[in-house]
């Protein structure tokens, strides 16, 4: 259990994390979602006592992080896969962490086995690929067999096989009753792993909801219509009591799945349609809508956004 209470971090004038209050519960995977620069990593660093909050409080199982005796036995974290000395072997890297928390060295061999790095245990970490570095970081997080695990963008730089492995690992850790807290800027990734969602944007809490509720609320279906006789169709649809959203250009959108009815109405009134297609909004789109106002670094063109909207959700991670 991780509890945040009004957690705030200010760097001079800039507010990185703004009055966050939420709890991360055991037994499920909690996704921590936000665009780049939303304050996810800063929040995680404060959870680990690395950065000092300007205001507010974080507690791990009711205690402050720096009050924990042998903290690796309570909470294991992967913050940055490169947060290690490249000249040290994988084994020695884990050994020094284990020794600092009174963890026996036999456990080092176990976690190396778990993440599949046993064969390169004596190799220097600087020769590792990004994926191997992530695995070593995860081995470090698992070292103390902690009840709470925290992963900051764990799938970054992993190949599909590695991503699959990480997803299963997180799910099985949660199934063992552990608290799993994982950050990502990809909604599609979260949709596949998380049971619960905490969404932030510009440091503020935007949503704290179960994944099922989020999907129910946000994956709306609608009908997309293109017509050269826009005004006439609008009149006809209004007349039939159908609410229309004008989506720019000659595109109209109608909520729900009413494509048959719209097609019949258009035929009746002899309106030409260039497109009449049922659509399902992706969670990625819902996430983007949710965080739209709070994205710090906007791309200047809207065109790429249009592109993304047409993709079925779940495909996003393949590109990253």
């Amino acid at each position, binding site marked *: 259990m991780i509890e945040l209470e009004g957690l705030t971090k200010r760097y001079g004038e800039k507010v990185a994390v703004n009055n966050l209050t939420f709890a991360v519960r055991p037994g499920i995977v909690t996704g921590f979602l936000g665009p780049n620069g939303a304050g996810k990593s800063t929040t995680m*660093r404060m959870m*680990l*006592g*690395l*950065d*000092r909050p300007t205001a507010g409080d974080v507690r791990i199982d009711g205690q402050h*992080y*720096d009050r*924990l*005796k*042998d*903290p*690796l036995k309570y909470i294991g*974290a992967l*913050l*940055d896969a*490169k*947060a*290690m*000395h*490249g*000249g*040290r*072997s994988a084994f*020695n890297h884990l*050994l*020094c*962490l*284990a*020794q*600092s*928390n*009174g963890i026996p060295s036999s456990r080092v061999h176990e976690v190396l086995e778990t993440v599949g790095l046993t064969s390169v245990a004596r190799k220097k970490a600087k020769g590792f690929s990004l994926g191997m570095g992530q695995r070593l970081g995860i081995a*470090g997080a698992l070292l103390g067999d902690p009840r709470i695990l925290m992963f900051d963008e764990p799938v970054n730089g992993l190949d599909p096989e590695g991503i699959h492995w990480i997803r299963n690992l997180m799910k099985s850790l949660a199934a063992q009753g552990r608290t799993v807290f994982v950050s990502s800027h990809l909604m599609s990734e979260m949709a596949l792993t998380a049971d619960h969602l905490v969404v932030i944007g510009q440091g503020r809490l935007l949503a704290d909801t179960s994944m099922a509720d989020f999907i129910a609320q946000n994956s709306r279906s609608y009908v997309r219509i293109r017509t050269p006789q826009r005004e006439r169709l609008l009149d006809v649809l209004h007349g039939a009591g159908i609410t229309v959203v004008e989506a720019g250009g000659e595109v109209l959108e109608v909520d729900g799945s009413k494509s048959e009815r719209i097609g019949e109405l258009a035929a009746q009134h002899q309106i030409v349609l260039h497109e009449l297609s049922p659509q399902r909004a992706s969670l990625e789109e819902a996430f983007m809508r949710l965080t739209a106002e709070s994205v710090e670094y906007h791309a200047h063109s809207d065109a790429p956004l249009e592109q993304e909207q047409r993709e079925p959700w779940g495909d996003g991670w393949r590109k990253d």
Partner: protein
Amino acid sequence: MAATQVIRSEWTKIRSVASTVWTLSLAVVVTIALGMLISALSKSEFDDMSRGDQLSFDPTFISFAGMSLGQLAMIVFGVLVVGNEYSTGMIRTSLAAVPQRGTFLFSKIAVATGLALVVAMATSFVAFFLGQAMLGEHKASIGDSGVLRAVIGGGLYMTLIAVFSMGVAVMLRSPMLSLGILMPFFFLISQILGNVGATKTFGQYLPDQAGSRIMQVVTPLDDDTPYGPWGGLAIMAAWVVAALAGGYVLLKKRDA
């Protein structure tokens, strides 16, 4: 958090990186080899020296001549032991494992200091005996008055230089910046400040100027240094304590 756990961990860290071996080996080799060379040169030139120089000839101090260069390797050792945590990002992993920052810092310093002390003390004794062997009939004996103090002092001096560098590296966090300041400072600037008339009153209180006094057995003829060998070492130790205190305060306060 038991400090013994953290000390074991820091020992694993220090013995598992290559920089520890090469910096300390370089310190040993340079200090001893250069000391022998300068001792041999001094022996061959002794007869050409002025009467005054012959009277104030200090065979013990001559055999430590290599430390002016060897200390630079000790500085690199001290800087890298601490600075590598920052330059690699390991510091965040380390502090997540040991959130008690004081325990973390002083365990690290204790392990590195212990190792530096063993190496420096051995180097000092070997540099002395090999240097004396080069000096032939002008040599000092370990049993002579003040000589043993100077030889032990030489080991302490090199250790303190390394610890001072650790403190500076904690404050500056960047190995390159730390080395960029410490190397020219101890190799050139402090030598100039400590020996040029105008700045000497202040310069002689700099850590290396004050600390190296303990390696002198014969005081120069026109010597007016206001402190003795142990007084000088105490001044150096005060600098070290100040550097460590500064590092500790900043480490406590700063975000990692």
